[in-house]
């Protein structure tokens, strides 16, 4: 048994180590050390908790058993998961943090003595409020992440689910959560506590179903933020510095990522949250109905163009992940480099289904990270490049975002792909992208459409080089 002051000091240390873990991610060189700091911080926090409880009876044994079961499952998943499934994995993990927060809150509510929070039916007011916030946010994180997971996994359709009065219903439920919390604090009734949790689960579901598949980068970041706030809420209940610091870090991290993602789509946070995007843009679809001529080619043409180029910029998107084409792409690039062609990669902030998704996939395919550039870094280079190779991206290359104020994506930052001497566009068909609008790029003079599966086309080009 160690003193409360000593354990609080250790919790502070592990909080600082968590800050260093995030700090390490400022560059790939320091990132692995950062992750190591994070692990040390976690080991300290868990060890100190054991020592401060100081109850080494039989319960201790079971804690280890459950720790090992969970840890084993986690380790297994971590080693088995393919990199393309990272968005699903992260969504799944968020749901677990949320549920764990709910369970800890329930446990504290049933047995407040264990946490020095008072007695059942007479819990300290501040603790009860903190507990309710932790439980409610945790429950929202859990059910919201489950929906996000199902949508990403394709079990549930990625199309937005909307119905009449949706926003009103959500608003009423959110208000009812506040009222429930008030009455819970006034009466200490355990029934109200259960109702509060149930209603929070429900609102988590309702908040995420109207948001479409391509807005998932925002949703995942947002749920990441929620899981942080839930942890912070529990941290206040338990008066635990490590949890409070971590909750604040994770909360602000997720919020910043959501902001970056929204900016990448030139949409406000509320616009994304209210959902329904991509389902309501019928007017712009009808307008472009007339058939326009497109030039299409095969792998041979593409190989010819690239062989005669001196610089090529690759624009990967979610389609590359779906087709698992990153390794084939890397092989193609290797062949190009052997012919002394300069190759770089251009990544749009919202390419893929989560922040940084494309970067991880390219890293997995052994693409050196100093050949991969963000939108602002590379956008001016398109004018000087010979070939742009668009693989699995669509809306993020649409020049309409710069030219047509009527377009739903007007103002969104896009990659200036059309400025290249020639554009190779790998796509299965001419169907519009997620925003539901036609891509002007398809019909440009200098665009050659390559209608095929991304992976197969890339392999064929490599053969022809």
């Amino acid at each position: 048994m160690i003193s409360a002051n000593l354990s609080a000091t250790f919790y502070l240390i592990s909080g600082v180590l968590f800050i260093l873990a995030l700090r390490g991610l400022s560059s790939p060189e320091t990132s692995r050390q950062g992750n190591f700091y994070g692990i040390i911080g976690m080991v300290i926090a868990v060890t100190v908790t054991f020592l401060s409880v100081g109850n080494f009876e039989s319960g201790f044994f079971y804690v280890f058993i459950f720790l090992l079961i969970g840890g084993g499952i986690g380790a297994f998943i971590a080693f088995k998961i393919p990199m393309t499934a990272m968005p699903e994995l992260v969504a799944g993990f968020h749901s677990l943090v949320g549920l764990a927060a709910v369970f800890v809150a329930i446990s504290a509510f049933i047995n407040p003595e264990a946490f020095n929070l008072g007695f059942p039916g007479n819990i300290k007011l501040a603790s009860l409020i903190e507990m309710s916030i932790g439980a409610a946010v945790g429950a929202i994180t859990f059910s919201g992440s489950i929906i996000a997971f199902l949508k990403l996994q394709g079990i549930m359709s990625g199309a937005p689910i909307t119905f009449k009065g949706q926003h009103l219903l959500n608003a009423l439920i959110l208000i009812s959560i506040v009222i429930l919390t008030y009455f819970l604090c006034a009466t200490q009734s355990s029934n109200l506590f259960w109702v509060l949790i149930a209603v929070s689960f429900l609102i988590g579901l309702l908040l995420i179903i109207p948001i479409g598949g391509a807005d998932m980068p925002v949703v995942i970041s947002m749920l990441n933020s929620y899981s942080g706030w839930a942890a912070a809420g529990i941290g206040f209940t338990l008066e635990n510095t490590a949890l409070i610091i971590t909750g604040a870090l994770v909360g602000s991290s997720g919020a910043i990522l959501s902001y970056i993602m929204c900016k990448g789509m030139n949409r406000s946070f509320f616009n994304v949250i209210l959902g329904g995007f991509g389902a309501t843009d019928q007017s712009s679809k009808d307008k472009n109905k007339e058939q326009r001529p497109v030039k299409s080619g095969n792998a041979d043409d593409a190989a010819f163009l690239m062989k005669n180029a001196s610089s090529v910029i690759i624009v990967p998107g979610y389609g590359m992940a779906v087709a698992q084409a990153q390794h084939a792409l890397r092989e193609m690039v290797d062949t190009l480099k052997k012919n002394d062609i300069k190759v770089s990669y251009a990544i749009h902030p919202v390419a893929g289904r989560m922040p940084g998704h494309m970067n991880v996939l390219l890293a997995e395919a052994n693409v050196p990270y100093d050949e991969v550039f963000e939108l602002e870094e590379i956008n001016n280079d398109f004018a000087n490049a010979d070939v742009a190779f668009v693989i699995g991206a669509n809306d993020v290359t649409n020049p309409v975002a710069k030219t047509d104020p009527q377009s739903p994506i007007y103002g969104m930052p896009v990659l200036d792909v059309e400025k290249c001497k020639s554009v190779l566009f790998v796509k299965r068909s001419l169907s519009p992208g997620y925003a539901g609008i036609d891509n002007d790029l398809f019909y440009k003079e200098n665009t050659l459409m390559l209608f095929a599966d991304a992976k197969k086309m890339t392999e064929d080009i490599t053969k022809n080089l």
Partner: protein
Amino acid sequence: MEIDPFIFRLSIFILSIFVGYYVVWSVTPSLHTPLMSVTNAISSVIIVGAIIAALANSEGKIFNPSTLFGYLAITLAAVNIFGGFLVTQRMLAMYKKKKKDKK
């Protein structure tokens, strides 16, 4: 009058938000996916609450409703801690390859 300890915790909380704000803005965009998985892992420090709940051992029983929720929370948080840190490690290891690959 004495200051309520809550105020101290609130101070830590608010200041940590600011620390988080500046630290996360300095994270390079190419590492945003590992950022999410590592924040996932560290937010599972909620396991400390789960351990306290599980070991509370009131009424001399190891398993009662309160500890049972604690054990469940331990399992969930442990999945996240091990899964989160290991998958981050796996991703970051891939970022190793750099300039020497170039011709």
